[in-house]
């Protein structure tokens, strides 16, 4: 039990309780609203082929790029229609999980 000596507070249904936090509670993932315009890597991998350019108008469902991850080659499909604002990767480039690969306007 990784607890601190000083009490923390936790509010449940409007009532504030004095207590301690666990390490797991402190390290929990904070929820962020997903932004469809920002394409992040869900797995680490590499770019096999880029199919779009910056400034290009893209329709939802088109391939943005082909990437390799977990020994598989996959197409990344545009989740929305829009204009490509920025491409952060080149063909052959290795990327990490969570890295921003591409942004829509």
């Amino acid at each position, binding site marked *: *039990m*990784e*607890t601190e000596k000083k*009490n923390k507070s*936790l509010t*449940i*249904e*409007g*009532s*504030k*309780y*004095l*207590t*301690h*936090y*666990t*390490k*797991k*509670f402190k390290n*929990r*993932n904070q*929820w962020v609203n997903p932004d469809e315009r920002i394409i992040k890597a869900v*797995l*680490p991998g590499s770019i096999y082929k880029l199919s779009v350019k910056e400034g290009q108008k893209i329709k939802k469902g088109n391939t943005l790029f082909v990437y390799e991850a*977990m020994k598989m080659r996959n197409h990344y499909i545009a989740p929305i229609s829009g204009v490509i604002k920025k491409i952060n990767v080149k063909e052959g480039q*290795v990327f*990490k*999980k969570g890295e921003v690969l591409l942004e829509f306007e």
Partner: protein
Amino acid sequence: MSLKRKTRELIKRREKVISGGGEKAIKKQVAMGKLTARDRIRSLLDKDSFHEYDLFVEHEARDFDMEKKVLHGDGVIIGTGTIYGAPVCIYAQDFTVAGGSLGLMHARKITKIMDHALKMRVPLIGINDSGGARIQEGVNSLAGYGEIFFRNTLSSGVIPQLSVILGPCAGGAVYSPALTDFVFVVENISKMFITGPSVIKTVLGEEISMEDLGGARVHSEITGNAHFYSLTEHECFEQIKKLITFIPWNNTQKAKAFPPKKPKSEFKIDDIVPSDPKQPYDVRDVIRAIVDDSDFFEIQELFAANIVIGFGRLDGDTVGFVANQPKVLAGVLDCDSSDKAARFVRYCDAFNIPIVVFEDMPGYLPGVDQEHAGVIRHGAKVLYAFSEANVPKITVILRKAYGGGYIAMNSRHLRADFVFAWPSAEIAVMGPEGAANIIFRKEISGAEDPEEMRKLKVKEYKEKFANPYVAAAKGYIDSVIDPEETRNMLVHAIKVSANKIDNRPAKKHGIPPF
């Protein structure tokens, strides 16, 4: 050859096999801070009680030059012995022999002793210290693991199964411990994971040490895979021995009764729980103030510490305790604490151990992470486990019993046999603040001073509902008791429930929200 000469030959043969992987390998094992497999068994079991079988088993592998290799005992020791006189079956993987790797004969030795444990209805202890499957033996090693998992499942709920992780336990090998009742780990020695740090680094680019990935602390505190954490192997063996005293040999028996002892006088039940329901305290002190000799044997102390589980004795008899812990996360139920409590309740139920619940909880932990992690399906396990259990079940409500938590924590409605409440108990559909905000929303928002009105209404609600008497008037609580009476009430309740019969509809098995 005379019998004497033949016996001498036997002794010579024995000595050779007992040397395991040889002096060099043993030195290496000791340098890692580990005992050898034989020393481990000797340290754990009663003196001179261990008897070994299958000493002369040899592997039959013929590929990859394996026919030239001699592996003493095929890297595992099996046998029977006693712990405080209780018979146990035991196996210990010998890391000095081919890294304790599991081949066909190695697995056959383990399954032999598992079969014996099940047939004889005695506890099984497995000491794991193995590099994993013996790759040279191919699918035969996989078959071996499968046979072990199957027997773990057959034995589950019939005999106690204890897994002791005293070395690496990686890949498929982890699933045998995961199927057993209690897993013991030791700091710096135990390592458990499905995929190791090197694979994770190559495939995912994530760098992590073995200790941070699957060390003893991680499994005790974060994953909940382990139940008992210790700093040395000897401490670990003491924990195992103590556990054995609290549990029965099998599911047709009761745990051995000990001579009754009074709790120690330094634990004064009146002084532990603050009357303000928002103030924390350590619920383990309440348990210690009640159990024999104030000896509470906690399980999964580090994991989901917002709920406390463990064994203690009341008037000599083993009891399983489940208690909300206001000191940690206000004692809420969340995914982890639900899993922890539900599994323990099922353990107690399977092995005829009465359950006592100490309740003081404000509700469920709010948060996106909790909802998305499936707090609904995890929380349901608690309802399932308490409803399903038909051992004697007693609840003592110390302070807060709000909403869904009130129902889940072994309420009358889930067929608790006795429900007691302290005068400080608050049994209500939700906390006074939340309830007043909803019920008196119009009055509060329409008031000249809404904040003042809110306070007034909260106070009104508290006075009317935040007590044990509303529930007692409906018979949901059997008795409102003086905290001082708690031990006597519990001892009595367990004594009069000794012959409890509460049969459930016949079925193959239920579908619990796993």
